[in-house]
């Protein structure tokens, strides 16, 4: 492999690492915000256990619901006694009629504005008497952070696409122009006419596939050895490949007649 091609492979490999790190960083941060949503449950209180049971059957199949747990009034009483050291007032507390509670935990990734509105609509429709507690400020804060993070990610993604196109097209044209003298001599000395076009195609394969295969290999090696716990959608690598293919096509068009 020629020095020029080797240099391009290395440069693209480094850009791809940066691009993958941006993606992993985004996934990592998004997971944190989504975990915050997951760890903030909604508590529902009702004097009628049946209505909570009915409500559970209505909502538990939704994909944004992680878990629904009904806590009996007796259990609540025990927990109050335990948590607040109310052994002395045990009998008094047991004499009170306590409500039954239902704790809903969410799948952070899926519990967004539409899902929250849907849940509120179900609550209103089926159990209007139910009292519910939910830390909406925290949820909204996390949703806003996810939104900003996503916007920043897409901006970064776009910049990486532009950077990749710019660098790979520029480098390719630079090295092709640099080799013009060689090819002129090659052709005038009796070399095979279509060799340059063929070589350009072979070099395009090197440039498109070697850096990408190295990146994918590193990623799967990290996953295999459990050094990385974040997953990259395989379509993401497809976008990277597509960008590299497009850059090669553009470079081919730019170099144009020199390839004959």
């Amino acid at each position, binding site marked *: 492999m020629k020095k020029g091609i080797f240099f391009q492979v290395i440069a693209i490999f480094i850009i791809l690492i940066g691009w993958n790190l941006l993606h992993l960083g985004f996934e990592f941060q998004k997971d944190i915000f989504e975990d915050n949503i997951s760890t903030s449950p909604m508590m529902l209180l009702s004097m009628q256990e049946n209505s909570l049971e009915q409500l559970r059957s209505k909502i538990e199949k939704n994909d944004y619901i992680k878990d629904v747990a009904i806590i009996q009034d007796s259990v609540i009483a025990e927990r109050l006694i335990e948590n607040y050291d109310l052994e002395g007032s045990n009998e008094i507390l047991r004499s009170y009629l306590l409500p039954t509670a239902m704790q809903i935990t969410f799948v952070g990734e899926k519990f967004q504005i539409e899902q929250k509105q849907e849940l509120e609509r179900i609550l209103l429709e089926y159990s209007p008497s139910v009292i519910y507690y939910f830390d909406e400020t925290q949820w909204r804060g996390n949703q806003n952070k996810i939104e900003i993070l996503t916007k920043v990610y897409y901006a970064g993604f776009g910049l990486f696409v532009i950077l990749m196109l710019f660098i790979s097209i520029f480098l390719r044209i630079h090295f092709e122009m640099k080799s013009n003298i060689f090819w002129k001599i090659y052709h*005038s*000395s009796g070399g095979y*006419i279509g060799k340059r076009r063929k070589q350009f195609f072979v070099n395009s394969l090197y440039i498109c596939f070697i850096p990408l295969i190295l990146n994918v290999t590193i990623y799967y090696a990290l996953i295999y050895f459990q050094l990385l716990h974040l997953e990259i959608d395989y379509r993401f690598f497809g976008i990277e490949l597509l960008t590299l293919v497009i850059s090669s096509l553009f470079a081919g068009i730019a170099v144009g007649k020199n390839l004959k």
Partner: protein
Amino acid sequence: MLKIEGFSLSRENKKFMLINEILIGSGVRVNIFGNNDTGRSLLLRSIHGDHHDYGGQILIKDKPLVFYKKKKKTILLDNTSHLLINETVWKNIIIPLPKITARQKQKILELCTISKLGDKIGNKVKTLSSSSKKFIELIRAVIQLPQIILIDDLENYFDDKNITVALEICNFALNSGTSLITTSKRKLDNFDSYYRIQDSKVVKL
């Protein structure tokens, strides 16, 4: 192998380099000589397929030049240098070769020895004389065994002694059926056939 029929070049509506017919067989050395500005270089470029503005037809192995557009069968050595001056003699010789066989390698070394490049094979081309540079181009052409080697202004690069060496180098290709067509200002020795450019016409001697 080479057939030129009714060939003519024109400049300002005036025709020159008129060739009624030239037939050149395989493995022959041809010298076309004449004064400057008679169209010698254009004739070679026309045979090579680099110049298309001519009358008549040129056939190589009974096929028109357009047939060889993608697979040239001729190699033209002209006045311009076609060498990578910062590369070695060896690298320059093997530029067009897709693979170097042991026989080719041995032959290249042999031809380099004949042209006194044997001990300079690892030297950079920029350190060599202009005749040595032309020997590199000649060896590179010869080793590929094309159908025709075209050398423009042979006497420009080589003195009489070196012309003999150059022809000796060409013998390797000539024995394999390659033909050699050279142009010069004067008639050169040791060629199989001669053509003189006289009054805008090419005449066989």
